């Protein structure tokens, strides 16, 4: 090997060793710098995508739009009627809850955000949303959809309006969970490359003779400091019993392939 090539190889290995020994904080700083440099491209790319979408929408036939509008108007009338009925039911429900001294449903202060895109990684399950520090978002905040838990904020772009959400289906997103109508609690997380492409979750560390059965719902316990209590996670598909503990396979309630609008929990009263 030529001496210059050997020096280059040694420098390369030295550089790799330097990178491998960075602390979490340094890595976050590097990532912030990287995404700050990327921000103009990402913004202009998103703007182009929006323009293209708007153009395609405009080219739709006007008659089809008129027919759609007519149907929507009819549906709106129906919805108004349903809304007034729901309001009456809501009041009745509230009164019944108070009468039975039910614990009040947890209320969250949330920030709505749109999912921009999935991050270009093969093994990691993350999405980018269009809300960031400007909306009061910081890392480790819980992210919900109208159905249940979506994940947790992993990274917030500094001074920007973008954040990265680590999805519940990723192995690194651990959630303290409980099984409804049972004393069983465990830790729920996904698995990289597991379950033949189906985004299933593993509920581990259940007791050895856990009385769980398929169809039971799984909720957050609220312990552990990241996720609020009583957020729906999914339903049990199967239970595997071991010598020391049991493990349940959970189907998530959220459709992670079609994430549109999500809500970041800024604070809660629980």
């Amino acid at each position, binding site marked *: 090997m030529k001496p210059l*090539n050997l020096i280059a190889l040694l420098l390369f290995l030295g550089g790799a060793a330097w990178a*491998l*020994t960075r602390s979490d904080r340094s890595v976050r700083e*590097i990532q912030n710098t990287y995404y700050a440099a990327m921000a103009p*491209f990402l913004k202009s790319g998103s703007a182009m995508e929006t323009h293209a979408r708007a153009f395609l929408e405009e080219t739709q036939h006007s008659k089809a739009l008129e027919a759609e509008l007519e149907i929507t108007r009819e549906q709106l009338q129906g919805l108004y009627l349903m809304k007034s009925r729901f309001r009456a039911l809501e009041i009745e429900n509230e009164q019944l809850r108070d009468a039975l001294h039910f614990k009040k449903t947890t209320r969250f202060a949330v920030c709505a955000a749109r999912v921009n895109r999935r991050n270009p990684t*093969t093994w990691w399950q993350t999405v980018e949303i269009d809300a960031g520090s400007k909306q009061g978002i910081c*890392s480790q905040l819980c992210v919900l959809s109208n159905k249940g838990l979506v994940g947790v904020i992993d990274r917030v772009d500094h001074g920007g309006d973008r954040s990265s959400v680590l999805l519940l289906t990723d192995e690194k997103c651990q959630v303290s969970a409980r099984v409804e109508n049972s004393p069983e609690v465990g830790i729920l997380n996904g698995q990289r490359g597991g379950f033949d*492409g189906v985004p299933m979750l593993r509920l581990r560390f259940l007791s050895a003779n856990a009385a769980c059965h398929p169809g039971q719902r799984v909720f957050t316990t609220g312990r552990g400091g*990241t996720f609020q209590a009583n957020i729906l996670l999914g339903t049990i598909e199967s239970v595997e019993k071991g010598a020391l503990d049991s493990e349940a396979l959970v189907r998530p309630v959220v459709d992670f392939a079609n994430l549109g609008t999500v809500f970041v929990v800024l604070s809660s009263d629980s």
Partner: protein
Amino acid sequence: MFRYSLTTLLLLLAAFVVQQFLPAFTGIHHSRILLVQLVFLCCAVTVGPRTMLLLAFVGGFFWDAQCILGPHGGDVEIYTQRVESMHFGYSILLFGAMGFLMQGLQPLFKQGKWHFSALLSGIAVLLYLAAEYAIINFIRGDFVLSRSTVLQMVFTALLTMLFSPLIFGLLFLIANACDHSINPEAGRRRQRDF
């Protein structure tokens, strides 16, 4: 030569930007085109070992800056068994290994047989993904390999490989613009035949 090396570095950085807008093909087992890796592999076969190592460092460093996840912030008393993840910087070594693999076929490329390099780029992407997956499993301490994962890796490698002629074409154009020959032996043979 210097101008060409600098351009390959800029091309690699541009690939990072384009990669952000390349979606996964959900119908093909969530496979995707790994443009950054492809550009690096194609460039690696056209440059010397020193430039290749520089490209590997830059590529691996920025790839990890883009992908690495932060630490789990929950209470340690509840989350007693943390999920360990790959550390920042591992991609630098993987990029370096892939680069050396591509350099092994450099004599053939210099003779003008770029097809072999295109084929090897697909194999290198497959090996890269397999190595990454093996490290994930090793860190987890539990080996799981589903059919879907194998298909995802194979289709990602195939899709990426399909674009390699395009990248090689671009590199030939850049080399011409920089007055640099990336396959000098093929050029000499063409002149002889002429």
